[in-house]
């Protein structure tokens, strides 16, 4: 008989075939779908996260776990309404105007989603006003910005100024990251937080959501 713990183990192991079997068994046995998500699938990713942070798991393995979680989610989601899908919060994220680098951003998106956040990935080369438009459209809790170049990092400053100008700054927390970025820079431009990499970005979001 399948258990929620078995589902978590499947996620940890990245076993996409087995997770589908187990999730379906649990559904057939009458297990609450929300519980399957929270205590099976996301619980598995919650084991993955510290293993990644400590270097025990590589990103490809984390991605396999995330993909496994998503395969399980595909089976459960039709059984619940959108409003009932557990979400720790909504985040929009993009690489700033003039910058095309996105590997770090993409890893951050993957980590955030696998830890239960709803993430809208705006992509790269996102103009200041497009961040505002996305905030108005999606009503996120957090806005994440990424940049890899010294000449595009200033776009984070101009984006925050744009959010102020457009009257949406107070509605969101702003977090930033990327190779040239520092905590000092984040403080200087009025960002709410800075993270060094994808895994600390998720921890930062967790703290932002509590604050």
């Amino acid at each position, binding site marked *: 008989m399948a258990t929620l713990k078995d589902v978590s183990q499947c996620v940890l192991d990245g076993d996409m075939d087995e997770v589908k079997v187990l999730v379906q068994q649990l559904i057939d046995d009458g297990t609450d779908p929300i519980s399957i998500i929270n205590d099976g699938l996301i619980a598995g990713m919650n084991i993955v996260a510290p293993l990644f942070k400590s*270097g025990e798991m*590589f*990103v*490809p393995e984390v*991605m396999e776990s995330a993909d496994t979680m998503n395969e399980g989610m595909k089976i459960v989601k039709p059984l619940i309404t959108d409003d009932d899908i557990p979400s720790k919060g909504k985040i929009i994220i993009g690489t700033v105007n*003039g910058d*095309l680098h*996105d*590997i770090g951003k*993409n*890893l951050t998106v993957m980590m955030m989603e696998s830890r239960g956040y709803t993430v809208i990935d705006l*992509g*790269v*080369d996102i103009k200041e006003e497009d961040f505002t438009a996305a905030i108005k459209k999606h009503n996120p809790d957090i806005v994440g910005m990424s940049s890899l*170049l*010294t*000449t595009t*990092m*200033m*776009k984070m400053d*101009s984006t925050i100024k744009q959010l102020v100008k457009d009257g949406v700054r107070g509605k969101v927390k702003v977090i930033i990251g990327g190779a*040239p970025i520092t905590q000092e*820079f984040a403080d200087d431009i009025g960002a709410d937080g800075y993270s060094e*990499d994808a895994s600390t970005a998720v921890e930062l979001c967790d703290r932002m959501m509590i604050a």
Partner: protein
Amino acid sequence: MSIKFDKLAYSNLNDFVYGSSPKPITTKSGMVIGGGQIYPEINFTLPGMDVNDTTIKKATTIYSNIIDGVLKRASELYAPGVLVEFETLPDFTEHPKYGIEVNRILLNAMKEASEKHGLKTAIRTTPNDLREFSRPPIMRSGKYWDTMLELFTQVAKDGSDFISIESTGGKEVHDDALVKADIRKAIFALGVLGCNDMEFLWKHLIDIADANNCFGAGDSACGFANTAMVLAEKGFIPHVFAAVIRVTAVPRALVAFEQGAVGPSKDCAYEGPYIKAMTGCPIGMEGKSAAGAHLSPIGNIAAAVADTWSNESIQQVKLLSEMAPVVAMEQLIYDCRLMNAATDKGQQILFRDLLVDSDAALDVQAYVLRPDVVMRISAELVKTQDNFLRTKMAAKLTVQELKKAINEGKVKSDRRDMKWLDKMDKAIDTIPDDPNEFYEQMKSELDMEKFIPSEYGLK
């Protein structure tokens, strides 16, 4: 018509050394790159700032200050010559007038330094590959293609000695391959997409170079293999995967030389030693000297067979002693002075081997840059002229080389490395020899919203 490289450029491992190459290049100022001594190659960038019509004057002033500072220091330290790299920021390629203006500022400063101090200099101008600004990228036409060629053409006309690029053809697929440590996808991205694009791109760049008394110097798999190296350094992907990618990127880099590039290959092209072994052309490299830009596990070994020695890039910021580019210039000059002194005393092989031995056993990414490993793998790669097959072969041979080295205790490894090498070995064996057949296999795994097949000559 492509140049064929069907035999190694070296028959003796002890000829494979820094500063010297079978096909040296003489610059307009008389520097002979690969002619017996290694030259410093200085690269620099702006501090954090917006670049637009309002700020361009400030930006050009900064570049002017940088070049004056570094050339003054080079003269003070009696540098035998300096290769200056102007690696443009995207704004400077997107708006060619900016890039042209700065390139002219650098050329003028170099001319003054020659007249005032007798300092020999040459400049490598490296515009950005703007094509990735389109998502999915448009690789063979359009405003980004035209704009970047406009900059290449004018800087060559204005007197740049070398033109280079860090081209990105195939990167949109390779990025996915990296984060998933998917060697099949990486081989497709490098061996099919990358090689196809390099042939197209470098034919055009060589035409520009030839028409303007300029050299097409070479490209870099920076967005592929260096991204892998940085991800490995962060612990995101296995070091063995990054090491295999390093060598897998070699055939793609070779395409530039088949089209007529002559070197020195780009500083961040750590696949350079393989290029030098196969073509005999000089190479630029960077290692410990590039720590201001990024960290790496190959700080010393990177210099072992280099012909120019670079700092990758450094911002114009004040350190305790001086502005950072001036500091970088000094560090490069001293590194080169030491290596050249060893050569003058006939000790270049010993010095080379010290550079190699200090790093090679400590990381698999350093191990694959050992001159003997480079020669061994390169000797196999030149047996075919098919760059897709070379790419597949490069991956397979590197996996085998690393398995042997780890089993024999010749290189430090992670307890998980053999698992990843076995995984790659099996995956490589599933790849057919026919690139079209491979493409058909890969179609179901490719995100067709991210790349356009026809932009790579595929259907």
